[in-house]
């Protein structure tokens, strides 16, 4: 049935049985009869009063509803991702992978590394825009500024990849309080800061995707990484809370737990430990940052029904 849209709304505070925002409207059919309609999320940004379209009946978990399908092509929506710690390693691979998937990418790091310009150039060659924003994730003010700059530049922010982190490996007996605190500040508090700063924007724009880079160390208790494992374990718990608190705003939050990946961290391992680690790895090799990046890309582009999960990427080293 053909119909014309005469009003619409997005109810951001739903009531049961609905748990997420519901978009609905009023249309008039060709005889001037008014109908209530549901509107799919993807059409909401392009709605205009007077817009014509089709009304079709669809069954959902909550009953049968009229849906309004606007008779216009969906506009290509700009998609924007912030990747922290993206100058190199896993963060850099994620930035490229997201750019390949159509995201404009904000590369954030504590310092602008030499390869940063090259990374941004490569993203531009992929047809996407990129900016660098310097931010120490352990400083909330800097993080707030990072999100603000992103929104000022691109008008929105859809994805946050909490990747920034560091490790200072010591046995607990030799680990100083400062070494403990430094890792907690960056690896755990940094995730809190970035997530807290970005949530209001994601709520406002109707959703978002957050991926927190945890670690296999959080799951199997890596010797010498009490601070790092505690921070990465904290990230896992934090991820589950965010998932439950913000699913109603269509904000999905997951953690990944990479195992033995080719990074500067694993390059720096003593040869003996390196060989032992390879021997424990069922695939017998390190994972590539690009392989981790593919998982992140899947979560943010395809994982519409995945939230609060911790997904290992470790070749079966920890099962």
């Amino acid at each position, binding site marked *: 049935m053909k119909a014309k849209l*005469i009003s619409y709304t997005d109810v951001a505070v739903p009531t049961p049985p609905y748990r997420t925002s519901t978009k609905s409207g009023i249309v008039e059919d060709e005889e001037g009869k008014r*109908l209530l309609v549901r509107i799919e999320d993807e059409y909401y940004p392009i709605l205009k009063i007077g817009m014509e379209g089709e009304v079709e009946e669809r069954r959902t978990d909550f009953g049968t509803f009229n849906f309004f399908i606007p008779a216009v092509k969906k506009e290509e929506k700009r998609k924007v991702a912030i990747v922290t710690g993206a100058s190199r390693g896993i963060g850099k691979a994620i930035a490229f992978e997201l750019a390949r998937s159509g995201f404009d990418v904000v590369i954030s790091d504590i310092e602008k590394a030499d390869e940063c310009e090259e990374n941004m150039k490569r993203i531009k060659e992929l047809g996407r825009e990129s900016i660098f924003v310097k931010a120490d994730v352990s400083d909330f003010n800097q993080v707030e500024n990072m999100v603000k700059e992103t929104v000022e530049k691109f008008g929105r922010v859809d994805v946050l990849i909490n990747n920034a982190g560091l490790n200072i490996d010591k046995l607990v007996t030799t680990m100083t309080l400062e070494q403990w605190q430094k890792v907690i500040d960056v690896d755990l508090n940094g995730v809190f800061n970035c997530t807290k700063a970005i949530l209001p924007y994601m709520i406002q724009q109707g959703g978002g995707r957050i991926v927190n880079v945890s670690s296999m160390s959080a799951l199997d208790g890596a010797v010498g990484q009490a601070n790092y494992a505690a921070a990465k374990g904290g990230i896992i718990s934090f991820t589950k809370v965010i998932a439950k608190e913000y699913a109603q705003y269509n904000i999905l939050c997951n953690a990944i737990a990479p195992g033995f990946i080719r990074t500067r961290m694993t390059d720096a391992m003593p040869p003996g430990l390196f060989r032992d680690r390879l021997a424990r790895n069922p695939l017998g090799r390190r994972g590539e940052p690009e392989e981790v990046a593919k998982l992140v890309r899947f979560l943010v582009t395809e994982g519409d029904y995945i939230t609060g999960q911790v997904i290992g990427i470790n070749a079966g080293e920890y099962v």
Partner: protein
Amino acid sequence: MDKFVAMHIRRTASLDGFLHEAVIFLLDNQQLLGDRMEVGIVSYGHTKFGVLEEDTPDLIKKAIEGCLNNVEKGISPKEIECIIVSCVDNAFSEQHQTGTLAWEYLGNPDAYGFKVESACVSGSMAIYQGRKMIEAGMAKNVLIVGFEKMNKFPTDKVTEILTHGSSPEERRYGITQPGAYALLIRLYAQKYDVTERDWAEISVKNHKNALRNPWAHLQKDITVEQVMNSRMIADPIRLFHCSTISDGAASILLSADPRKYTDTPVFIKGMGVAHDYMSVIDREDPTVLLCSKRAADQAYKEAGKTPKDISLAEVHDAFTPVEPMCYEAVGFAEKGEGSKLVREGVVMFDGSLPVNVSGGLKAKGHPVGATHVGTMVEMFLQLRGEADKRQVPDAETALIEGHGGTGSVAVVSILGR
């Protein structure tokens, strides 16, 4: 001819021809009938609106005690034959039989109590019924108690309970009360000259007014920018357009013989009640609050007044973008021109027709069952010159517009001295 005879004539005024005309003439020229029975408000009780420690029984008790204590010439509970309580949803209070509870606190074993519910306008509907009872000779004194205890629950639960008052089909579609108002005001904004700034100015106005009201829930100044940047609740309705979730109670005492209890009663000169369809899509013109318009027409006619006679008003700003539509419904502005009254300052505290000087539902608060008993208390004080810092000079005739749902039921009252 005494007042009861006059009432009898009114009841039997279905005669044709001359006799009918004569009866109508007499009823419209009450001075020829001697003293017309005008139902007067003689006392009030009012708790603060807000997040209160008091639970439902305490609220009801305070409202009753306040009202009895405020009767200037004194009253015995035995003189009050009936107590009508107004409460929108017992799910808030987790307490049924609130009429009986009120009866216990009244202290007159021969009286009786019951509850009236009519969505957000329950308080006015209780008053309407109490007044009718007195006019019909069923009681001489009726105590009206409105209350709601909303803050027992988190916001999402409160919103869910309030949605029970929505049209079943809107509710099925997940359209909450702010959602249905959002559909309505977007239709209005598409058709008429109104801006987001106008809506924000109304929120700012009502917050400023609430600063003068010690009973108000929100006593803080806000800016247009704060309103326009507040988070979206149901696009285009934002958080700072929304009335508050409040606890509170208010009461008034209606009397057939008001001067027995006070030398300065306030009279309900006219009152109207009307309905419209619950769902926005079923209304003939959703950009008109037809129920409020029809109720206002009845009230003006009964009171023998016009919009030009009104000194001040309280209207139903459950969501401030709807306030201009209320102005239009009660005849303060032409259709589509309500927002001009905001831009021109007419409805400001120092304007020629101040609206929501109490702070309105937006800032004084909206403990739904108490709200429109509270507006009646406000006008009682204004017309007696007892409204302290928020007193409107020369307040002669006051109007109260309240509607429930998103405009499915309305009560309009006109008061004078």
